[in-house]
């Protein structure tokens, strides 16, 4: 009798499981652990201790104005917002950034940077304000050091902001001091640019709390994609945490040859951050005693960093193509296809054991893309 009851119960269980599996996916413990890491969103941001202007409302307004002012470039033709277009998720939609000259890297979005450990594809900067200085100085991008000085000398409003936040006029400041202040003000502005809550975030909360009804609002294809992302695909290992990046660097078999040369990615990034007077180890760090420079101090020089690039965060990724450091992949389908058929012989670093050709079928590719699309703010 007891046995029959067991069998009947077993049949019922199987029947009910198969009903559930039509409109919801079952996740393993490991997958659930990764999914849990992908939130809550947005994480708490406690301010940037290296930047005394972080969170300062005057600096945020001033920084926003600087960001979209064409007068920051040598010939008055380019602002930060020319490449980081605010109405377009802070990207330009091009494969490679185009400033005064053609660039060699894809323009990253300037959203969600408050949570970064390193900045730029090679992690050439260890603070947001340090990263903001690079395009002004770069000949190929804005070549605007003198232009920034002229702007502050000729425009009373900008001169006034500078005076107020620096405690001295731009005429009294060296180029480096001027650029640091401008970089810090723009950092105060960019820190406030955080993408919104997405349908993925709502699903994550529902899943973790067992709210079946809310879970069903999330497309089944995105659920299957999430299972692949956090499970067999191992994507979550690198694209970890609330912003879908563990903040470090990896090689994924994308060519590091450029039209001119090679882009050795993280290798130069480490070199730059270890030697630049603008890094957190230098005198412009506003609170070195807090230990905020430890990541730079203990950063290891390694040969296998050659050809590694930063693991990009994936929030709003559907809106920020083309993809990869060199913009060589046009669509999310292309990116997923790349991972599906990844050529391990092209990887020369130790990361091979995480990435394997996934040999996804077309439904699985669509599922992953549908999941990636659910990382965009749906309002």
């Amino acid at each position: 009798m007891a046995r029959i009851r067991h069998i009947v119960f077993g049949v019922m269980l199987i029947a009910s499981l198969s009903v559930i599996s039509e409109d919801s996916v079952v996740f393993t413990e490991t997958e659930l652990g990764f999914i849990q890491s992908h939130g809550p969103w947005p994480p708490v941001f406690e301010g940037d201790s290296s930047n005394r202007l972080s969170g300062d409302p005057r600096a945020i307004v001033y920084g926003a104005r600087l960001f979209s002012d064409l007068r920051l470039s040598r010939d008055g033709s380019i602002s930060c917002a020319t490449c980081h277009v605010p109405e377009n998720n802070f990207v330009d939609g091009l494969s490679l950034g185009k400033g005064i000259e053609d660039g060699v890297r894809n323009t990253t979005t300037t959203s969600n940077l408050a949570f970064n450990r390193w900045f730029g594809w090679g992690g050439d900067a260890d603070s947001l304000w340090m990263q903001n200085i690079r395009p002004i100085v770069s000949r190929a991008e804005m070549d605007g050091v003198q232009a920034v000085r002229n702007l502050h000398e000729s425009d009373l409003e900008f001169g006034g902001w500078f005076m107020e936040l620096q405690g001295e006029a731009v005429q009294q400041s060296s180029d480096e001091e001027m650029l640091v202040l401008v970089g810090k003000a723009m950092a105060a502005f960019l820190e406030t640019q955080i993408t919104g809550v997405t349908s993925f975030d709502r699903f994550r909360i529902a899943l973790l709390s067992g709210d079946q009804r809310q879970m069903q609002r999330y497309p089944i294809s995105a659920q299957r994609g999430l299972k692949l992302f956090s499970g067999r695909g191992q994507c979550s290992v690198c694209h970890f945490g609330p912003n879908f990046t563990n903040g470090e660097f990896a090689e994924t078999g994308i060519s590091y040859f450029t039209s001119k040369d090679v882009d050795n990615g993280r290798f130069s990034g480490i070199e730059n951050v270890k030697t630049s007077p603008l890094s957190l180890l230098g005198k412009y760090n506003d609170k070195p005693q807090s230990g905020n420079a430890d990541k730079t101090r203990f950063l290891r020089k390694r040969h296998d960093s050659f050809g590694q690039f930063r693991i990009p965060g994936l929030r709003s990724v559907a809106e920020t193509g083309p993809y990869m450091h060199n913009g060589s992949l046009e669509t999310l389908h292309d990116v997923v296809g790349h991972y599906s058929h990844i050529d391990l012989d092209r990887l020369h670093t130790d990361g091979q054991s995480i990435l394997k050709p996934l040999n996804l079928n077309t439904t699985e590719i669509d599922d992953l893309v549908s999941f990636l699309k659910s990382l965009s703010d749906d309002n």
Partner: protein
Amino acid sequence: MNLLKALILVLVTASVSAYANCPDVPKDFISEDPVGVPEEGASEDENVVVHYRTDPVQIAVGELFVMNLLVCAGDEPWSGTLGVDASMPAHGHGMNYEPKVSANNAGHFFAQGFLFHMPGRWRFEFSLGSEAGTRHVYSFVDI
């Protein structure tokens, strides 16, 4: 009965006094022995034990952490050198950060500059250097 008590007392005293000469091993430290065959001539280090505690104790992915250590060779504090590193054996990669170890008195060490950038199984590698050569002690943590 009394005999049993006495025996327990002896055992307890013995285990405490094993630490007494390499003092202050706090209870919440993790202790690890060297693995593998001791290298030739290393016999005097045979009872070397690495005691450590990370701070914070619960390591979080992507957060820098530090480590306090006490190294004992038998009853004596370790007088040789200590290096500490960590890696993820399953992935074949180490840390992108290079910890620095400073020696304090009587076998106490402090190491800083650790960052585990992926979840999973990590392995601490302690290198104990002395005139007899270098010996390795390993300890696994899952995060």
